[in-house]
Structures are given as structure tokens and as C-alpha cells.
């Protein structure tokens, strides 16, 4: 068997992580206002700065960051539990999500002491929200071809270019942007760097893009000769490609790749309990349950490697690819099941229909964010020794 598949042995969350789950549930019970399922289904697109600050006051933003910077210093297992419980409840996590998951850990790993002192406590207090500046018009998944350029000038950098599909840039304080600091797009990975951009600076324009559900969760960001101080550079000049891949590993390795449609699954289950169900409904619901149990076990196997200090990049890609398939299958199948008999629709469950509609419409993004299906399958193939 390939080494990659050997990584997926059954593992349990440690008792301490399970004990932490009770704390998380208590917190959510008192701090999460009841909301309609179609609102809760937005969970990691749901932006609620007040909720994020309450979570930060509880000490749970910057979950894995060191206590010295105000972080919770929790291990990967407890992060798994916190994320899982918040997404299952449909908590609006978008405000602090990216800083917590990837920008904070990236700064902690590659930043200078001054950068850590400046940004990390703000992240942990829920005062600094981040967005990810990777994609560009015409570049899309091909990050090596980014054209946004930062040029060295006296005392700093001049930044010009455009980023797109940037989640919540219009509500964030900072962006960590992957830009070209030397060479040309033909150089591919060479000459790329990451810069922390204060989005309030002159010369920056943020244009929200309304999506098909009516939300505006992503945006287009234009940099017109923006001046950045020297200390905007994170990590080493020219190391952007390596750093961005480390960051993407943070983005892909968590349990969030399984739970995007779980509010719908629960809503449908409760509707079936009220209105009765066919054997086909039970088969379908049971199938999602057995698949969830399986995928969660795979995800815990990845988390176990993370907790041991390993960097399970390929394993995370594998779980993300099949996890997003699961997330996308749920609204598609429930759409079919709920409308399987038009005569049965007399009592329209508007909440259920709105939740199905939202997820059916937005689910194409599940396999885009954090790396498309094709990119991930290429990574898995590399892990299998095929490239």
C-alpha cells in the first residue's frame, strides 16, 4: 500500500479535547443568538464582529497562538473541537476566521518579533481581521503567475496591481498579499513575496462582488501605487511561494472541509421527524451519516499528524477533496429528496427550502476555496509518487 494511505489509521481525540467540547458548547449556548437555518448555514461566510469579539474575550481567537501574544496556546485537537462545534452550530465565524486559521499562524511562523508583537495580540483580541490576497484576475489557481508587483523604494515598497475573490476584504483590516517583488511572471515561483497590507492606506480600493445568493462575501481589491513601510514584508523576500504553501496547508488541514452543509443536514433530519419519511429518505440520511463518520475519522487522522508537529500537506489535500465532495453532495441530494413527491409539499417548510437554496447556489465555491479540485488531485498524485 502507498505510504499516503497508511497515514489514515483510526485515531481518537484525546480526553482533554473531549472535555474542552463541553466548555465550547456552554459558550455557544449562551453567546450564540438563535438564528434561522439559512443564516446558520452561512457559518464560515457569516460575518459578525461582535460574536468574534465575544469569542476573543473568552480567549478563543488565536486558538493555537502562543499565550505570550494573547493566544489560547491550544493544541490541534482542541482547535478541531472548537471549529467543529462552531460550524455544527452555524456560528458566524468569518470575521476572525482567516486570522485565526492562517494569517496569525503565518505571522507567528515567519514574522519578525516586532510583527508578532504588533499583530498577534490584536488578532487575539478580535481587533484585527485579515483577508487572503492570493488570487488575481486571470491567475485564479495559478498562483505562480501573479502580476501584482511591489517595488523597493526609499523606506519601503510601492504596490500596484489587483487581487480578486478576496473573502471579506471589504470588512477586514489587513490583507496578506502574495506579490511579485522581483522578476517577471515567467519566473513562476521565483521573486514572489508576502506583504501585510493595511487596507486603510491611500490608493487602495475595495469593491465588493455580489454573489448569486445576494451576499457580498468576496471582493476585488485594487492597489494604485500604495506606499508600504519596510516592515510590511513578512518572512523573506522571494520566499513567498514556500510561505504561501505553508499557509495553504493551515487552510486545508482543519475539519472545516466537512461541515459547510451540516446545518442543512440537521434541518432536513428534523423536518423528516416532524413530517415522516420514506425508506429512501432514511437510506439517504444514513448514507450522509456514515460518510460523515468516515470523513471525520480521516480528518482526525490528519489532526493527529499536525499535533505531532508533522506537516500533513498531502493528507490534508486528500481529505479536503473528498470532504468538499461530501459538502456539495448534501444540498444536491436533499434538493432531490425534498421534491421527490410534489403532492407532499402542502406544508411548505420555508426555512428548509431557503437553506437548500442557499447551499445549492453557493456550494460550487466549496471546491474552489483553498485550492481547486484539480490542484488538490495533482498534489495527491505527487504524494502517490506519480509526478
Amino acid at each position, binding site marked *: *500500500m*502507498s505510504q*499516503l*494511505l497508511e497515514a*489514515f*489509521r*483510526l485515531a481518537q481525540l484525546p480526553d482533554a479535547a473531549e472535555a474542552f467540547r463541553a466548555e465550547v458548547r456552554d459558550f455557544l449556548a449562551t453567546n450564540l443568538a438563535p438564528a434561522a437555518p439559512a443564516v446558520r448555514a452561512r457559518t464560515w461566510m457569516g460575518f459578525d464582529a461582535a460574536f468574534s469579539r465575544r469569542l476573543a474575550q473568552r480567549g478563543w481567537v488565536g486558538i493555537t497562538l502562543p499565550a505570550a501574544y494573547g493566544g489560547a496556546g491550544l493544541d490541534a485537537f482542541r482547535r478541531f473541537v472548537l471549529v*467543529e462545534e462552531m460550524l*455544527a452550530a452555524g456560528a458566524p465565524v468569518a470575521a476572525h476566521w482567516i486570522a485565526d486559521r492562517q494569517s496569525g499562524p503565518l505571522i507567528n511562523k515567519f514574522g519578525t518579533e516586532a510583527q508578532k508583537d504588533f499583530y498577534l495580540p490584536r488578532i487575539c483580541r478580535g481587533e484585527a481581521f485579515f483577508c487572503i490576497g492570493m488570487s488575481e484576475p486571470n491567475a485564479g489557481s495559478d498562483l505562480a503567475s501573479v502580476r501584482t508587483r511591489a517595488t523597493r523604494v526609499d523606506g519601503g515598497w510601492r504596490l500596484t496591481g489587483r487581487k480578486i475573490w478576496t473573502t471579506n476584504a471589504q470588512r477586514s483590516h489587513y490583507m496578506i498579499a502574495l506579490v511579485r517583488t522581483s522578476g517577471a511572471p515567467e519566473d513562476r515561483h521565483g521573486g514572489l513575496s508576502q506583504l501585510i497590507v493595511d487596507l486603510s492606506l491611500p490608493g487602495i480600493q475595495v469593491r465588493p462582488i455580489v454573489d448569486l445568493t445576494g451576499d457580498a462575501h468576496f471582493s476585488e481589491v485594487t492597489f494604485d501605487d500604495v506606499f508600504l513601510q519596510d516592515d510590511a514584508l513578512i518572512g523573506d523576500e522571494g520566499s513567498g511561494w514556500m510561505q504561501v504553501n505553508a499557509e495553504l496547508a493551515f487552510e486545508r488541514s482543519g475539519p472545516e472541509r466537512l*461541515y459547510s452543509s*451540516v446545518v442543512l*443536514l*440537521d434541518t432536513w*433530519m*428534523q423536518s*423528516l*421527524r416532524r413530517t415522516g*419519511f420514506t*425508506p429512501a*429518505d*432514511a*437510506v*439517504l*440520511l*444514513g*448514507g*450522509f*451519516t*456514515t*460518510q*460523515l*463518520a*468516515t*470523513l*471525520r*475519522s*480521516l480528518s482526525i*487522522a490528519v489532526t493527529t499528524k499536525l499535533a505531532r508537529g508533522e506537516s500533513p500537506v498531502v493528507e490534508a489535500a*486528500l481529505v479536503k*477533496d*473528498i470532504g468538499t465532495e461530501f459538502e456539495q453532495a448534501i444540498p444536491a441530494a436533499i434538493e432531490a429528496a425534498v421534491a421527490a413527491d410534489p403532492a407532499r409539499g402542502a406544508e411548505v417548510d420555508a426555512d428548509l427550502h431557503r437553506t437548500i437554496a442557499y447551499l445549492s447556489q453557493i456550494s460550487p465555491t466549496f471546491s474552489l476555496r483553498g485550492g481547486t479540485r*484539480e490542484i*488538490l*488531485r*495533482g498534489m*495527491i*498524485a505527487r504524494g*502517490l*509518487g*506519480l*509526478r
Partner: protein
Amino acid sequence: MFTEAIEAILVDHCTPAAIRAIENGGSATALWGALAESGFLELMASEDAGGAGLDLDAVFPIFVAMGRHAVPVPAAQRIAARALLGDVAPPPGLLTLAGHAQRAADGSVSAAHVAFGAIADHVLANLDGQRVLLDAARAQRTTSGIRGSLGASLRWTADAVGAPVGDNGAQVAVFSAALHAAALAGAMERLFAMTLGYCNDRVQFGKAIGKFQSIQHQLSVMAEHVACAGVAAELAFKAGEKIPPLLAAATAKARTSASVPLVASTAHALHGAIGVTEEFDLQLYSRRLHEWRMADGSETYWNRIVGEALLGSATPSVLQFTMEEIL
């Protein structure tokens, strides 16, 4: 430790040639004898009864190995029977399991699609929720007629059906499903390894076919489904338990079975025509995937059991049910 030792026996005695010979009506005595003499069939018997007293998580890799080697005798069933029967010693000879035997109005008993029903000496059956040991020599056997299959449907007249040896017959169905889940995981590992190896070796258009992106993506997806099957099968084999819990076994059988169509068809697609020939070994495993997907109920059957249990519970969320009842 046990797994390496049993693998060594299987490498020696369960060769592709030996599998073909038994599938073609040859004697299973040599292979069965090698497994019995080694003591491996008693792994789940208590130490007092001369066994190793192993629980489920310790025998899991052995059950997977049975699938990886396409073992053409009911060795996994016999190991499980030791756990199912408790203090009752199983009779000598090839013993298999029938999880869903039915009693007719005239007292006759039938068991449909019994794994190894064509060659078994005894059947441990679930009959009306009780455990019954049946002498296969006294059964009317109807083989499936499927080439190479050792499965058969069996029917006993009323006078050939003895008294139950215990209750909890339902455990027979659950354990039989769980061991088929493990066998599926093992056979899928083997199919994946064969397919990966083939794609690295087979040259077309001037390079190994594994260098083509479309082939790489098919192998990546196949790997995902093999990984799912592996971890799902393991869910049924809980540490400290002798009998798989119902919903964990249901999950294991459902999810491994669900992987079958994609894993089998991808293996065959990437092998091309050679894959469907008798002489190439791929078919030894891919035929079994389809047979084992149906054995003891497909994913449709087991998913329904899980779905109805979930709908019948008071749990507010699928995740909570999964954590409390399956994992």
C-alpha cells in the same frame, strides 16, 4: 505480530494459483489446514480455551489481510465464530456465517447467498434472533452459478435444524458484515497497489501512463475512496470489544461497500483490457469487491439502519449522533 505471521502463511499457501484452484472446485484442505494448525483460527477464543483472547482491534489487521490476499476459505468467519460462540467450541472443518437465515412455515430453514456456502462444512446462522449451528452436509445447496464464486444458498429440512446454541443471533449478521467490511478494505488496498504499480510501469505515447494528468486524477480519487474504506472498516473493530457494535459495523459495511463501484471500475479502466482477463490477477480481487459489497447487505441496507436509528433518536444533530453512537 500475529499479522506478519499470518501474512507469511498466506504468501506461502494462498497464492493466486491456489485461489484459482479452490475456485475451480479444488480442495481447500491444504490452505485451511495451514491456517488451523497455526492456531490462527482460535485468536478470539479465550486463553482458557486455548486461544489468544484477542479483541476486535487486534484482529482487525488480520481480517484486512484476509481481503488483501483474497483468501478463498472462511477463515475470517471461523475466527469470528469463536467470539460469537463464547464457550461453545465450534465443530471442526470449514465454518461460515449466515446472518439472515429464514424459517418457513414447514419448519425448513433457508439462508440465501451465504459466503463460502458452496464449500463450508458448517454454518453458524442467525435464525429468528437466535444462534443456530447447522450442518452444511445436510443442506440442499444451490450455488450461485457465478464463475469463481464460492457462495451458495442453503436449505435445510426441519429435521436437520437443531436447537439454538444461544441468543443474540443478530450478532452473527453484524459480525459477518464487519468482517466483509475489513475484507473489502484489504482487497481495495491490493487493487490500488496493483493499479498504481501498473500506471507507473505501462508506457504509452512514450511515457508511463501515470505521467498523464487524467490518469493521475483518477488515481487520486481512487486513493480517496480507498482511504475512506480503510478508516470506515476500522470503526467496527473497537478496542476492548469482542463483537462489533451495530451502528459502527453498519457504518463500516455501508462506507466500504459504497467505495466499491468507483474503486473497481477505476482499477479496471486504468488496466485496460488486460484487467478483465482470467490470467491477470486483478479479477481475483475485483470480483470479490462486487460479491462482498452485496454480502450481508449493501450500503443501501446498512445506511437505512443508521438513518432510521438517527431519525428515531432525540439527538438534535447528525454530528452529535455520529460522535455518540458510531465513533
